[in-house]
């Protein structure tokens, strides 16, 4: 029975082998842990699906393989060994029947037919792949039946050498090279892919946070005392976004094959920074059902678990809209990158006291108000500027006029 790399997240396409707990030849019980794997931000264990003997290990520690790749094979009790014996008999008969006739004048190399991609890599290929720590699947094969030849491997190695960035003539002592960890690699790849996929448009609007401030500041002390954490703007904005999405559902969708798949539920993702060591977008499912206080609780739980690396696959999967709030740092606004396969993302930076023009019948006056800029990146394949602008206007209105006290 083959043990395969599972899919541990909706958008996860591969996983890394962290550690084997068993060796070839070990007997294992069903449910026993065979190996640890890691995908994006999750570490988890793979258990033996059946009892038997581990007869082969096909991936090594540190290796990253696609979902569905065979990791190992278990021989279940007696049936498997019988199968092996039969296989040998089959092979022996095959050899006998395929022996060239005695009178054949040509010299018949049976062995050549067996050298093809995937089976029977030649000794030279095996050695080079091992010596240079390569993955056979990375190498293009131009031999018969697509087999990887020795020359293919040599060319591949030469290609790797030449595509390496030119090294500095003299090592600069003041520079530091920080290798990308797995999360950085994943993030980098995702960002590039997102920008390449979605034509990003940035649209901004400002909002007066006085109403939210009244609600927030009056509760602040007690909230902190009860829960242990601060009540921030984030749950308010999240609530406002959910309400606005109700009127402008298209921002909560995914671009399909020449169609827009509009999601009925709002699974709101919030961007969580992990102490400058990476970024996760943690999802709250059915956020539209939750009040500000419930959202606050949920968000705090996510942040705590994110920072303790205890997020589960469900916490990372299925987001339909993302909210980013780098506010604490005082930035004006940010042009965020869409979290694929969503079509829009909102960034809310700092809320700051600003001079604000108040219009009244008796004339315009300047007052000091807490103002924040909402920056909306949207995918222009899915929606147009007017729609997004209308959404932002609705959002602004909710922020400024909702009955925030009823949320508690």
């Amino acid at each position, binding site marked *: 029975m083959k043990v395969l790399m599972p899919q541990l997240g909706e958008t996860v396409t591969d996983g890394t082998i962290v550690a084997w707990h068993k060796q070839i030849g070990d007997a294992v019980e069903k449910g026993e842990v065979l190996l640890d794997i890691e995908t994006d931000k999750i570490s988890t264990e793979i258990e033996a699906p059946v009892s038997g003997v581990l007869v082969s290990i096909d991936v090594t520690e540190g290796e990253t393989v696609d979902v569905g790749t065979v990791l190992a094979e278990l021989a279940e009790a007696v049936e498997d060994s019988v199968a092996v014996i039969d296989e040998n008999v089959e092979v022996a008969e095959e050899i006998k029947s395929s022996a060239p006739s005695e009178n054949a004048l040509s010299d018949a190399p049976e*062995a050549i037919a067996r050298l093809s991609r995937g089976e029977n890599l*030649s000794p030279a290929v095996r050695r080079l792949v091992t010596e240079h720590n390569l993955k056979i699947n990375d190498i293009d094969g131009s031999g018969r039946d697509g087999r990887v030849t020795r020359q293919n491997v040599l060319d591949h190695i030469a290609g790797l050498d030449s595509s390496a960035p030119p090294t500095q003539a003299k090592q600069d002592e003041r520079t530091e090279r920080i290798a990308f960890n797995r999360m950085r690699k994943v993030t980098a790849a995702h960002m590039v892919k997102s920008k390449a996929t979605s034509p990003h448009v940035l649209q901004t609007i400002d909002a007066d946070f006085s109403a939210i401030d009244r609600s927030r500041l009056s509760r602040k002390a007690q909230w902190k005392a009860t829960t242990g954490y601060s009540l921030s703007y984030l749950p308010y904005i999240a609530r406002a976004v959910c309400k606005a999405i109700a009127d402008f559902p298209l921002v909560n969708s995914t671009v399909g094959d020449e169609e827009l798949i509009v999601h009925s539920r709002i699974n709101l993702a919030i961007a969580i920074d992990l102490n400058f060591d990476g970024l996760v977008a943690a999802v709250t499912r059915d956020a539209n059902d939750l009040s500000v206080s419930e959202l606050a609780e949920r968000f705090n739980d996510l942040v705590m678990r994110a920072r303790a690396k205890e997020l589960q696959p469900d916490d990372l999967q299925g987001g339909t809209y993302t909210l980013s709030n780098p506010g604490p740092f005082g930035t004006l606004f940010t042009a965020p990158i869409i979290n694929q396969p969503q079509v829009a993302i909102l960034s809310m930076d700092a809320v700051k006291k600003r001079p604000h023009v108040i219009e009244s019948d008796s004339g315009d006056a300047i007052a000091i108000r807490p103002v924040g800029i909402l920056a909306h990146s949207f995918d222009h394949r899915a929606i147009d500027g007017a729609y997004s602008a209308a959404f932002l206007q609705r959002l602004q209105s909710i922020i400024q006029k909702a009955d925030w006290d009823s949320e508690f």
Partner: protein
Amino acid sequence: MAELSYREAVAAGIAQEMRRDESVLFIGEDIAAAGGVFKTTEGLLDEFGPLRVRDTPISEQAILGAVAGAAMTGLRPIAEIMFSDFFAVCWDIVVNQIAKTRFMSGGQCSFPLVIKSGNGGGARFGAQHSQSIENWAMAVPGLKVVAPSNAADLKGLMAASIRDPDPVLFFEQKSLYGTKCEVPDGELLIPLGNAAVTREGTDVTIVALAAMVPRALKAAETLQSEHGISAEIVDLRTLVPLDTKAIFKSVSKTGRLVTVEENPRLCGWGAEISSLVSEELFWDLDGPILRVTTPHIPLPSADALEDAVLPSPARIVENVLKLVD
């Protein structure tokens, strides 16, 4: 430089050595007055006289026993066995007496002799006059085995064989007697145990011997011009001592090996080469080792049949194409 035929080179090599060393004598059937049935020893009787160049009766055991006794007692004799198939008649003297006596005596004597013989097929002589038996000789500890592919090599290797302190079986491939090439003037000496890379290449190593070398060269030309495959040809020149370094150097470069042997298939010399390479160069091989040989049959006499069974350039090409992706 002069152009010599392969057969002329035989006499030239023997003469060169007989001139410089009086202990070199030469006996055999029809080698003196007639200059050899293949005309390989013309002029030797005239130059060196009947004491040093002597015709014998048809007595292969006596001929070889005589050169053995003479070699043990201070001379450097050369004997001819007319057709190498005839070695079977006197094989006892070769393998039990000449090859073993030094060892059995604890090193008390040695046998600095050369037995030269017309080897191989292609002349339509039929099975008892056409076999390539260099593999028989290679299999016997105590014998050196030489098989040149061209006139220049022949002259130089003949000289080295005569100077060698050990018994040498010197195989002249009959089908090459008429071939010609430029041979340097003056003394020529090619030490035993040195293969020649006759053609450089990158995609496959073809190891060949004697008459198979020109066929391999023809095949290499076809492979290059019609298939863009670059073949390297290694002419072994001697089977014992064997230039394994040259073989390994070539195969580690190309990753592929084909041997071309005139001897019958089983236990042909290529089997030993194949074994050595697969044992010591396994991790450089990009495909299985192939052997192109005469099938395991006595050689037929009809020209169409003989040509079909001896390894041809076309068959060499066919096998390389199977091997190179």
